[in-house]
């Protein structure tokens, strides 16, 4: 307790120290910049950043005069490129980097801004409401995202059950088992498969899988969570295989050779050395595949029924209900407005948050793997 108090008392001091340090570093940097850069180049930098900033602000307020700062930027840049090429290039590359980061921030900002009305209207109900009506413009507008979240969860689980085991088996096969010649055919082949557009998978699913389940398994409707999840799983397969295979390949050859030299068979090496060592990378691949499956839009949009509701029991994957977060946005986004549109944006926020969590998780896992295996570097 006293320790905690002591820490709290120290806090302002520490804060002040870190701020002073930061200020000092900035001053140092500014001094270096000032002494190493010609006056003209500094003026050019100022003009460039000012024109870009004005462009952004004018664009944000949708002014027709946005074109003026753009022209100013081009003129300054052209002149700067002629006089101080190195400084101009540095400023330009810095600007592109900032633009990349700001695109993500803009995405987050605009999703949040546009989903604010529905949250103000319904509160947390937008995520938790399970009573009828779930999705209607009557009664002042009731839009509950819960059935879509359940739908996304169900299809993602099915897709993962399909893609994870088969994908890992594929990765083990390509990286450990296949002879060189087979690998040189199979690996580019799998990468090619990753390129097949999702709408094509959806078309096949619609004409074949949906029909198949409708006729043979007598599902109540054309299009079920199971068929869509199966198709999404097949789509996510190449991603899982490619990333997991990269991870297994990254396990240093010396570790494998050591195991082989101790007299273990190749499979024992794979099972007890390579896979455990590459496990974090493999799980990163699976997480990435799950993220892809979750964000997959077109196949599900084409295949599902767009009926919103909860199957009972929840794991009845052959029910007549079929709507996920992505499909509702794609299907209704074209002609929605007002609260309805805002609800779709809220769906986008939920989707974005879930996928981002998976992405950061897989990056963390991969970083851990580098920490573990990169010891010799």
């Amino acid at each position, binding site marked *: 307790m006293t320790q905690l108090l002591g820490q709290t008392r120290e806090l302002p001091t520490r804060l002040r120290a870190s701020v002073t340090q930061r200020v000092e570093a900035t001053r140092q940097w500014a001094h270096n910049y000032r002494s190493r850069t010609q006056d003209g180049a500094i003026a050019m930098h100022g003009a460039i950043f000012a024109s870009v900033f004005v462009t952004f602000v004018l664009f944000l307020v949708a002014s027709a005069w946005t074109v003026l700062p753009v022209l100013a930027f081009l003129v300054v840049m052209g002149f700067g490129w002629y006089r101080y090429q190195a400084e101009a290039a540095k400023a330009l590359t810095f600007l592109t*980097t900032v633009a990349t980061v700001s695109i993500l921030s803009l995405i987050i900002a605009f999703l949040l801004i546009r989903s604010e009305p529905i949250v103000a209207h319904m509160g947390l109900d937008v995520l938790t409401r399970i009573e009828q009506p779930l999705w209607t413009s009557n009664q002042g507008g009731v839009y509950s995202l819960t059935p879509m979240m359940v739908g996304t969860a169900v299809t993602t689980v099915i897709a993962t059950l399909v893609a994870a085991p088969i994908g890992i088996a594929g990765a083990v096969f390509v990286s450990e088992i296949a002879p060189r010649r087979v690998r040189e055919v199979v690996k580019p082949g799998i990468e090619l498969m990753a390129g097949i557009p999702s709408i094509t998978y959806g078309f096949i699913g619609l004409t074949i899988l949906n029909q198949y389940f409708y006729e043979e398994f007598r599902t109540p409707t054309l299009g079920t969570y199971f068929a869509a999840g199966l198709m999404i799983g097949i789509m996510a397969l190449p991603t899982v295989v490619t990333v997991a295979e990269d991870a297994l390949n990254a396990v240093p050859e010396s570790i494998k050779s050591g195991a082989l030299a101790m007299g273990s068979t190749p499979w024992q090496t794979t099972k007890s050395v390579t896979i455990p060592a590459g496990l974090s990378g493999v799980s990163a691949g699976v997480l990435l595949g799950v993220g892809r499956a979750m964000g997959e839009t077109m196949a599900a949009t084409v295949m599902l029924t767009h009926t919103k509701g909860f199957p009972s029991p929840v794991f009845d994957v052959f029910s007549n209900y079929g709507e996920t977060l992505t499909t509702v946005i794609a299907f209704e986004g074209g002609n929605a407005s007002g609260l309805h549109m805002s609800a779709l944006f809220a769906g*986008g926020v939920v989707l974005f948050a879930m996928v981002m969590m998976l992405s950061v998780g897989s990056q963390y896992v991969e970083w851990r793997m580098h920490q573990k295996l990169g010891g010799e570097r």
Partner: protein
Amino acid sequence: MSSVTRNRLVAGDSTTSVLVARGVLAASALAFFASWLVLFQWVDETALVAGVHVLKLLGVALVAAGVGLTVVGVGSRLEYFESTPSSSAGLPVGFVFGLLWAVLGGLVATRLLGNALAMWLPVAAGFGIVGLLVSVLPREDVGSTLPVAAILVLLGGYVVVGGINAGWTWSPSWSSAVFPGSELVPLLVVFGALLSAWSAAKAREGFGAEGRQSGAYYLVGSVVFAMLGVLALLVAFIVKNGLETMLTRTSLTGGHLTLPFVGSVPWAEFPFLMNQTGGLFVEVPGVLPAVMGTLWLVFGAVLFAVPLGIGAAVFLTEYAERGRFTQVVEVATNGLWSTPSIVFGLFGLAFLVPRISGGNSIFVGQLVLGFMLLPLVLITSREAILAVPDEHRDASAALGVTKWETIRSVVLPAAMPGTITGVILGVGRIAGETAPLLLVFGGSPYPSSYPNVLGSFQFSTQPPFVTNDALLSPASALPYQLYSTITAGVFPKEIFTNTEFGWGTALVLLCVVLGLYAIGVGSRLYFRRKLHHE
């Protein structure tokens, strides 16, 4: 092991067991393929082969495999056959078998005793424990064959005596679907065949470490084979369905080309690629507007994303110190890379549409696809720049060349191949992207003209001084065309149905995308090989 060292004095005989194991493998492979044929409905469930129903034949194959496995396992345990088994099959195998046995027990119990939880749960648990003990307690040769053989014989026998036939159905209360025997049997046989192949492959190598390797390789190999088979079938299916539509009225000399001075000469005719989709006077509707739309989209996206991506990559690798800032950029890039495409569409709808065109337009589509392309360009060109050896930079600096000159004339040219590969792969990805286009790009489902972007630039004295109506109006693109064909009602022309036109569009799209991918993958292989040879 060469045959020279084989000692005739050993007690057991190994050739018989290898022969039996091979027989089991062959039976499993046959059953595996036959079941897929039935599942894909290339063979009718009720078809007769040599006077016997197909499903019963599958059952016979399972029973035969089970008997063969019993012979090998028991023979090895009684030392009739030479083998090198471990003392136990191991706990993981035990758990898998326990689980399988529990499922089997549960099914049997629900068939015989009814659907009450209190009835079938104890039976299932009992079966599971027996399966676990039988596979873990005895020596490996018994533990990894008998549990499998029992399952196979029970399952196959039940099918053979007609317990499940094509007309049999199972409608559990938790599911809206009905499971017919005609599909369940082949599915069960697929799993049974995988199991028996694993067990037989183990037995063929005489169990032990060698046997486990052989078993695992067989299992992984068949799973991967099935996966590649399914993927290849998908492509073949699109080609088969789309080819006829795509080649409608195609001829090598049917059309004509007007050349200056010469006049009209015979030329290849390709109506599906060269015609408008809608319009009154079009006999064979084609996908020209969609192809042009895709070209413009890709062109704009590349023009936007490639300079941004390469610039950011140069800054991150050459100028920035590794620290908080580069970490933030990395996380942002990876985040952008994994953001779902539909979210990009929403962003374009909220941010770009009201500020640029007030509605769906090509320009917004180009920008949104550019946003999606950006992280890939950044990641790949960054990797390519990092791969340029530091010696190059040092040598350049030693000659007194400035940093920027070094980047421009040493680093960037060396990194170009990798960057180009990345861009091509990324273009393949965005060319097939549909979801954002639904929200920010798409126009009429059957366009009768293609966007004339080059011809509609107009200059004025009002801001913004340059306008382009074609760029600010909606259009069609290949994936969007496919989507709108699928979802639209009746196709306006009689020559195709909606589905036929869809297959044709899908094939063109597949050719474009896979062509780009093939170029990208090929160029990467080429450059990598070149790099390794140096």
